[in-house]
């Protein structure tokens, strides 16, 4: 192992160098965007068609939005988005309990083996289109969101958008720590949305479970 650490073409080193370059490029792009935004301040801004969760904004709340094309009809997907089916594709959801009156209690895996409880109320349902929710004061994390189903053009199926706003526990530092541990709500939500797509399109959640010569891994469990 140590022999390879010094090898300049070690793939891990290569990946690390790639990640470094990507980070630099991201920094440069952000700086450029800020510079352009300052220049644009001289003009009246024009309303664009960008989804609101993709716009630059100043807010204490973490806002996350992700849209995916799912090759199934809108009504079928809306009907499948029910708490009973969440454990099939939401990996970090331990349980969803119905408390009645459109309020449900979610038990979710959190960093360092802890669990977090969310208590959310569905505030609006637009059949075959949208489900909105808002957390109640009993929730560990204040959050609100929407899952939206819109027809994709040319018979391609449906755009499923998950839009989520929440107060990160322990602020930005906590958020970064959670991200490193892959328990950050954005990472979870993005992966859950992909699993929903897999389940609806193929009938199963994709798994790379297969053997390797790494003794810690099981051929029946997925791995990174």
């Amino acid at each position, binding site marked *: 192992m140590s022999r390879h650490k010094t090898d300049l073409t070690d793939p891990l080193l*290569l990946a690390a160098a790639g990640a470094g370059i*990507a980070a630099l490029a991201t920094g440069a792009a952000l700086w450029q965007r800020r510079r352009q935004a300052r220049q644009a301040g001289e003009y009246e801004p024009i309303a664009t068609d960008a989804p609101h969760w993709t716009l630059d904004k100043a807010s204490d709340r973490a806002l996350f939005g992700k849209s995916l*094309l799912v090759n199934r009809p809108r009504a079928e997907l809306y009907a499948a988005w029910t708490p009973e089916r969440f454990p099939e594709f939401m990996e970090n959801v331990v349980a969803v309990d119905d408390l009645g009156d459109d309020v449900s209690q979610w038990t979710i895996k959190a960093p360092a083996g802890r669990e977090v409880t969310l208590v959310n109320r569905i505030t609006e349902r637009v059949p075959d289109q949208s489900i909105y929710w808002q957390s109640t004061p009993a929730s560990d994390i204040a959050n609100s969101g929407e899952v939206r189903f819109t027809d994709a053009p040319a018979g391609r199926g449906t755009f499923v958008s998950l839009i989520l706003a929440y107060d990160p526990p322990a602020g930005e530092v906590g958020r970064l720590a959670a991200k490193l541990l892959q328990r950050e709500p954005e990472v979870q939500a993005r992966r*859950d949305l*992909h699993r929903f797509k897999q389940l609806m399109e*193929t009938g199963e959640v994709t798994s790379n479970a*297969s053997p*390797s010569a790494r003794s810690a891994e099981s051929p*029946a469990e997925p791995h*990174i």
Partner: protein
Amino acid sequence: MRAVTWQGRHKISVETVPDPEIVNPRDAIIRVTSTAICGSDLHLYDGYIPGMRAGDIVGHEFMGEVVETGACSTLKRGQRVVIPFTISCGQCFFCEKQQYSACDNSNPSETRDASELMMGHAMGAAFGYAHLTGGYAGGQAEYVRIPYSDVGPVVIPDDLADDDVLFLSDILPTGWQAAVNADIEPGDTVAVWGCGPVGLFTIQSALLLGAGRVIAIDHFPTRLALAKKYGAEILDYTQVDVREALAEMTGGIGPDACIDCVGMESHGFTVDNILDQVKVKMLSSTERIHALRQAILACRKGGRLSIPGVYGGFADKFPLGQLMEKGLTVKSGQTHVQRYSGELLDMIRDGKFDTVSLISHHAPLEDAADMYRHWHDEQNLYTKIVLKPGLEKGAITARQEMEHA
């Protein structure tokens, strides 16, 4: 079971690992009867593909017998099947467009993030090829789990031998797609860089698709001899200035279509390639694109450029202005294997392809480490290696009648 594993750069070992298991309803398990080493396995061997982990089972060209099926598999125990190297669900937007290698579901949610960061979109999955493409165990093993087994595997009739059909897994459809992507018109002159197995199938495919002439470029005598046997005119780049020769052979206008079957580890003792090698060593680039540069400069104005050769990242001194000013059309990509399986199997039965004479060696799976070394170091003698699980270590057969070897 026994399996060929990647342990690090230039380190391949055969290990005893757990058997695969059925995990999803559409899965099947096959017992491998033949599995080949691919040119792209050399990119893993040389450590140019990021996202490999020590202990990964490699191999993506394989076939075998169905031994176990999930509840929703359409395969039956005992069937002989060739497995496409691309893993494709068959039901997403891309699969429905028959762009199977772009499948949007086969790369699992756990591994797709890194792939998306690097490429802009997560790539489809493949067997035995790094975690950016799903991290699935490969086919250089005794048994393999096949996801979506109702979509990919090609059922093989009993009268066809393994050697006749094994390459339906990758290099035959890859050569075929390379020629299809060159949009060949009747009578066209097509130049093919690289006479490895993919290049050799590209030559056969281009002629079947109506090319008037195929000009093949390499420097290994055995590989050039095979190219000639399959109907190409040949150029050894150590003997001529390739661009000058191509121009003189086409009345100065250049080939109508140029196909790069070389990819990221181009050979050649030229100034640009030596600079590329230095940059790759210093990690400021991952690609050596000498062949691709030459193809762009050689191609006729308004011609077509097809790139089946594998590249992994950023390239230097890419002749972008030349590409644009000459108005070239570029097509590339991993192979949509499932799209071509049926017609290519029929063409094999009709005797349209020579799928056998490029195989130089049959070797036991147990000898994989030695075979990788030969495949890497002796490319003139070793033109294609087929590994056989179950054979006793050392039971290697080499094809002796190779001319010009």
